[in-house]
């Protein structure tokens, strides 16, 4: 196989080399498209804004779809987007937005208030997973093409911010509710700075500049998101200049990369975290148990969960498995701003203490009745062996699993490990036939969406489409739901923060969703080809894969010196290319062609 590939490579190289040599004269006049290449490590699960959950999906939507209101790069402040101005009436329950003049979709169709109203009303009517926490109580009207009226049935602290992705009515009107689950959403019609041009599964996503973008056509012509299945390859590609920026730089390479000249490394803080989620489904809400898996019965016991919480040494995981990057965590961080995360009082914290964990298990009646080193369910039941799902798309997942399984073993709990990629993991968790997993989230600016994921109605109950739910701890707590509803309509900021703290402390005490660490996004970019990288929020946030990804539209190519464009430069390029071919043919391209597992950092913004 390698032999044949080498021949093909050789032939290709020869052909390309000749063509280039022949074209040296004319090629100098033809401008190549200005291309930004970004290396990432987690393939898209769907391009459909209604249901996708991975950070890469959000990155694509941030580029492809404009929102009614935008967010400032520096501080997330609500700024004009598709709407240039807005005003409120009826005690903040009604908001009237005025759209910019002459808005157009990338395919030339006019973008009017009908598109906006269509998106919001359809998302609410069909309860689209990613839209409901924002538009669930809002009705949209389009009295004239440039006016949108939003009427909320309850006071909504999030308004006037309306950051849902507006989709083109003329495309989506043809897709029925049923058809939507199968719609690939690769139509490429958008209103953002870039639109999808080509997607090759497992390889790359290419986006082209949208000439009709309301902010003006971006300075770069296209963006290529290149999927890397190996972390080392991604780092080398960045060092060599094959890619201009890299998302999910492995922690082990991060500190070394910071020393390379011409490369800037970024620890982007935007509230992301990694958690150990336990399956705590306890019969509520009702679902057809014959179609779903069930958690280990021990997980329904608070003492058992507390024992697990006491046996996780978060500091050790951060310092060893995460190379010391990140902060050991207590409560869930629901938003980019740390003010929303409660401090857990020392007396209530589940500190690392294996003896305490063992004592809790003894008290709960979990004795090793058959003497094989693994505790049994009370009354001499089965061995307690928890099914642990490990992510293949993260370099941290397997090492973390080694630590956790070791501690659990020491307190007498067995584990059975199985490995999944992120797309599979979503449905495995939905099916409910698991006991624990480690994954991550990157929250939004407002805590509401992240908080909404742990409501009872987000526990999967429809066995036909279990991917359509977020609650991956299958946790259902009526008090939490009640508090959620309170903060959802609380207009007083301080009061709202207090309610959110109460919810998250409650969640912490429940010990079903153990936050391991607050994890920064590790990124790096080259400074030789583009300027204008924006951190969101300023100084502390990431440059790419941020909340609204403002970098791309602000990037400008650095003018190459004239000499580089002269024929001499191109001839040199040909020489380099031939040399590259020589290396590629001789070395069999270096990397093996087998499909490798895809390591990447927290998939996060699964939201």
């Amino acid at each position, binding site marked *: 196989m390698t032999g044949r590939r080498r021949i093909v490579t050789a032939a290709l190289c020869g052909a390309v080399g000749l063509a280039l040599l022949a074209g040296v004269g004319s090629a100098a006049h033809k401008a190549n498209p200005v291309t930004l290449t970004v290396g990432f490590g987690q393939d898209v699960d769907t391009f459909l804004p209604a249901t996708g959950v991975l950070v890469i999906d959000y990155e694509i939507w941030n580029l492809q779809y404009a929102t009614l209101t935008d967010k400032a790069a520096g501080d997330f402040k609500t700024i004009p987007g598709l709407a240039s101005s807005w005003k409120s009436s009826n005690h903040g329950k009604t908001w009237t937005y005025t759209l910019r003049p002459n808005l157009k979709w990338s395919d030339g169709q006019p973008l009017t208030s009908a598109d906006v109203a269509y998106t919001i009303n359809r998302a609410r009517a069909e309860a689209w997973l990613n839209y409901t926490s924002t538009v669930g109580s809002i009705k949209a009207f389009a009295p004239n093409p440039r006016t949108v009226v939003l009427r909320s049935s309850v006071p909504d602290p999030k308004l006037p911010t309306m950051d849902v992705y507006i989709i083109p009515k003329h495309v989506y009107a043809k897709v029925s509710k049923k058809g939507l689950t199968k719609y690939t959403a690769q139509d490429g019609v958008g209103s953002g700075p870039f639109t999808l041009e080509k997607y090759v599964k497992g390889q790359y996503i290419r986006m082209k500049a949208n000439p009709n973008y309301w902010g003006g056509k971006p300075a770069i012509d296209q963006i290529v998101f290149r999927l890397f299945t*190996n*972390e*080392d390859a991604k*780092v*080398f590609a960045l060092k060599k200049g094959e890619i201009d920026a890299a998302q999910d730089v*492995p922690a*082990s*390479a991060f500190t*070394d990369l910071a020393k390379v000249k011409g490369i800037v490394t970024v620890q982007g803080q935007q509230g992301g975290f990694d958690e150990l989620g336990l399956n705590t489904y306890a019969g509520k809400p009702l679902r057809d148990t014959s179609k779903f898996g069930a958690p280990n019965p021990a997980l329904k016991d608070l003492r058992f969960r507390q024992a697990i919480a006491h046996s996780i*040494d978060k500091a*050790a995981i951060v*310092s*060893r*498995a995460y*190379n010391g990057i990140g902060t050991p965590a207590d409560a869930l961080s629901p938003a980019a701003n740390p003010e929303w995360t409660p401090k857990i009082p020392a007396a209530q914290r589940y500190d690392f203490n294996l003896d305490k964990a063992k004592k809790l298990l003894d008290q709960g009646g979990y004795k090793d009745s058959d003497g094989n080193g693994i505790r049994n369910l009370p009354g001499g039941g089965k061995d307690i062996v928890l099914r642990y799902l*490990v992510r*293949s798309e993260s*370099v941290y997942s*397997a*090492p973390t*699993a*080694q*630590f956790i*399984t*070791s*501690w659990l073993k*020491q307190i007498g709990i067995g584990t059975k*490990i*199985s*490995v999944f990629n992120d797309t599979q993991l979503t449905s495995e968790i939905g099916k409910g036939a698991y006991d624990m997993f480690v994954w991550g989230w990157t929250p939004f600016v407002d805590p509401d969406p992240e908080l909404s994921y742990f409501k009872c109605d987000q526990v999967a109950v429809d066995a036909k489409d279990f991917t359509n739910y977020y609650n991956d701890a299958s946790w259902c707590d009526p008090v939490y739901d009640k508090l959620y509803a309170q903060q959802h309509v609380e207009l007083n900021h301080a009061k709202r923060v207090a309610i959110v703290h109460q919810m998250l402390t409650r969640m912490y005490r429940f010990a079903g969703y153990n936050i391991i660490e607050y994890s920064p996004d590790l990124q790096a970019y080259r400074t030789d080809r583009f300027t204008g990288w924006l951190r969101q929020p300023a100084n502390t946030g990431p440059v790419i894969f941020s909340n609204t990804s403002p970098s791309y539209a602000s990037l400008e190519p650095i003018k190459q010196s004239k000499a580089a464009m002269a024929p001499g430069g191109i001839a040199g390029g040909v020489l380099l290319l031939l040399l590259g071919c020589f290396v590629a043919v001789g070395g069999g391209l270096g990397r093996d062609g*087998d499909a*490798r*597992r895809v*390591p990447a950092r927290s998939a996060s913004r699964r939201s």
Partner: protein
Amino acid sequence: MTALAGGKTPSARRITWIRRRRAFAGAWRDYRASTPGLIGLGVLVVIVIGSLAAPLLANHDNLDPSKTLTTPLWASPSQLSPLGTDNLGRPIWDQLVYGSRVSLLVGLAATVIAMVIGSVVGVVAGFYDGWPSAVLMRVTEWFLVIPFLPLAIVLASILGPNVRNVIIVIGITSWPGTARVIRAQVLTVKQRLYVERSRALGAADRHLMLRHIVPNVSPLILANTTLTVPIAILSETTLSFLGLGDPLRASWGRMLDEAFSNGAIGKNAWWYYLPPGIGIVLVVLAFTLVGHALEEVLDPRLRERRS
């Protein structure tokens, strides 16, 4: 014939044993003449003793990252002898020693499975004409035609990753070559005169197969076994490297996998990937040398060609 020169006539069983002992002594003499064979055997003995004596040579606790919290991460051999540490601070030496157990266990156990299946299929397909032979050989060809790696990957991901399943997967994917070789040999053996005579005297198929055919092809089985072990060990490495090995037990393949996915190559942490790599090369080479030396000793056709 000296043993027979004495006054008492030994029993038939004793004669057989004397003959076997002599044959073995002769085979060992022939084997000793092969330098590569001796080198291979020496290396194997060292590695097998090392893996059996693992608890004396290494500390099993050091395989558990939660028990090595004080060692530096990515320490080079000069910082932490003898072989440095990995991305989680676990000493490489302990992983290497304990990893040899998994690699050898999988290699040997999978080979036993492959040999049992291969020999049974080969002997039966060679002994019987007609449809049993045809059916068995079509099955064999089917396994030969399917590329090994995809089949093994599919099986491993269906069965789930643990040592037992890896053994099964490798065992049931590496027998067809043996089956064909054995069948060819059975085809020639069963034409020999003494087999015909035995049959004329009324021997049943079972007797013929077990007493006449199998003993005559067993040298071939043995030689094939030693040549299948290295392939099985390499297969284990391959599956582990692809993430289909047992995620909770150190093996050489898994060490390579972890070194690769954690960026050891980018960090120039040669002490992470070279020891398991060299270990695999040595074991595979040793088994191959022993296998070839044995083949020359045991296979009459090769011996004739040599003399």
